[in-house]
């Protein structure tokens, strides 16, 4: 018997009512997919294709209008507290609390998971050191550069050793050099921890570089193209995937 999927979407649709009382906006339409334990999946799509709504459904911040979302067999919205310490999130912007120092920000999840102060600060310090920020533990976010702040947010997400890691375009707001450096570190960390990861991006190259499996969304969110990627793919094979993705995105945009 095969292992149950870590993340499961079954015929999921999500609509949002309009403020002006008009027809509801459908962000996701009949979306189904499964993600196995330890799998890294990149979700690619144009702006407004429902990637972030999918992300919010997995993280349990919203509930589906139709269908079923299950994470480790539980409803992430209804069984909200059950997921404490199980999900780590890296957002597009760092979302650091400005009143907390770098180390206190990293320790936030551990603190909410009731880890004793001494232990959590030690662990947070080790994660900051791991990401090259040991000299900035007591700096407030405003004193850090954008790249440093995003490192702190990555450390915050990994520090609690989550089973599932959700990443919503985490490197899109960074310059190319910083983004590339962080991507490498991020991929190494993912391999090390073995967490199941969903990586949302609108960059084809980023998706190809990171994703072991790639899903391309059309609008409203539905899988338009899906493929498995591997590190030993030839450049010709990658080029073929690029071409297919561009084709799908182009059709989806019409």
């Amino acid at each position, binding site marked *: 018997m095969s292992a149950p999927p870590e993340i499961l979407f079954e015929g999921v649709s999500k609509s949002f009512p309009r403020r002006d009382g008009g027809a509801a906006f459908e962000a996701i339409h009949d979306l189904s997919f499964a993600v196995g334990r330890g799998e890294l999946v990149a979700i690619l799509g144009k702006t407004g294709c429902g990637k972030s709504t999918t992300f919010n459904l997995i993280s349990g911040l919203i509930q589906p209008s139709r269908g079923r979302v299950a994470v480790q067999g539980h409803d992430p919205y209804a069984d909200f507290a059950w997921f404490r310490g199980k999900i780590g999130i890296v957002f597009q912007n760092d979302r650091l609390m400005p009143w907390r120092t770098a180390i206190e920000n990293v320790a936030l999840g551990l603190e909410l998971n009731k880890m004793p102060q001494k232990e959590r600060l030690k662990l947070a310090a080790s994660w900051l050191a791991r990401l090259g920020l040991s000299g900035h533990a007591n700096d407030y976010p405003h004193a850090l550069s954008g*790249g440093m702040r995003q490192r702190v947010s990555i450390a915050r997400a990994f520090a609690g050793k989550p089973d599932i890691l959700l990443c919503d375009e985490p490197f899109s707001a960074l310059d190319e050099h910083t983004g590339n450096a962080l991507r490498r570190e991020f991929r190494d960390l993912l391999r090390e921890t073995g967490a199941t990861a969903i990586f949302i991006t609108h960059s084809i190259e980023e998706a190809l570089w990171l994703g072991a499996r790639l899903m391309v969304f059309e609008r409203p969110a539905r899988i338009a193209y899906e493929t498995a990627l591997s590190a030993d793919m030839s450049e010709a094979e990658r080029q073929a995937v690029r071409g297919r993705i561009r084709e799908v995105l182009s059709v989806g945009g019409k």
Partner: protein
Amino acid sequence: MAVADGEGAPPPAGRFFGFTRFRYESVVALAGLAVVWQIASLFVPHFLFPSVPEIATRLVEIFTSWNSLFDMLATSARILAGLAGAFVFGTLLAMPMARSPSFARYVYPLLNFNQGIPALSWVVIAIIWFRGIEFRIFFIMVMTTLPAFTFQVLDAYRAMSKDLFEMTLAFRPTRLDLLRTLIWPTVLPGILTAWKVNLGNASRVVVVAELVGATGGVGYELLQQQQVFDMAGAIAWTLVLVIFVLVVQGIITLIETRALRYRAFAEHAL
């Protein structure tokens, strides 16, 4: 360290947020006022413009007399108790308003209605409704400063970052943890501002309340000075109240500086 110009660097020694310059200018301005007053006292009848040394003498008498000190402390305690009550009730009102827009729609008109009631009306109402002097004053203070606290706390809560709220929720905090780690630090700057703004209002209201309905305190003493036409005493007692407000403002600023030390500042603002 990769920081923007001026951001995150410690403030230059001796000029913390321009404090030194502010103190110097304040001394010059107040000294100027005293000089102008003293000159006026030379040309205007004594009962209208008593001399500065005479006012200073009365001020010293207040600070060295147990009865006067007791009056001063009574007024201070009334102001702080009234503000604390208004803060607690205002916060208790603001929280459900923030969470329920329909509840807020019912409470807003009542608060706006309250804003239009003069402090003196509350004094009259309190005298008719209640017997105890202290409770009367507490009631007047709460009713006159409660709307400002409610609006400030409500605004601070509503200004809470949706991004930070979602990020914190993703960690599945308990309600208490959410309050402690996110909501309280978010609303704290608004609360400190509300205290500073309301402190001035409260000091004015408490004098009116004491003037009419108390047998002690700065307001009562002012009434005594008015009855004997003692301008030096009236100004001295007014200065007592001003000094109290400045001291508490200073304490709140110190708390603010400590609690909000994480805030970046730009050198150009110094």
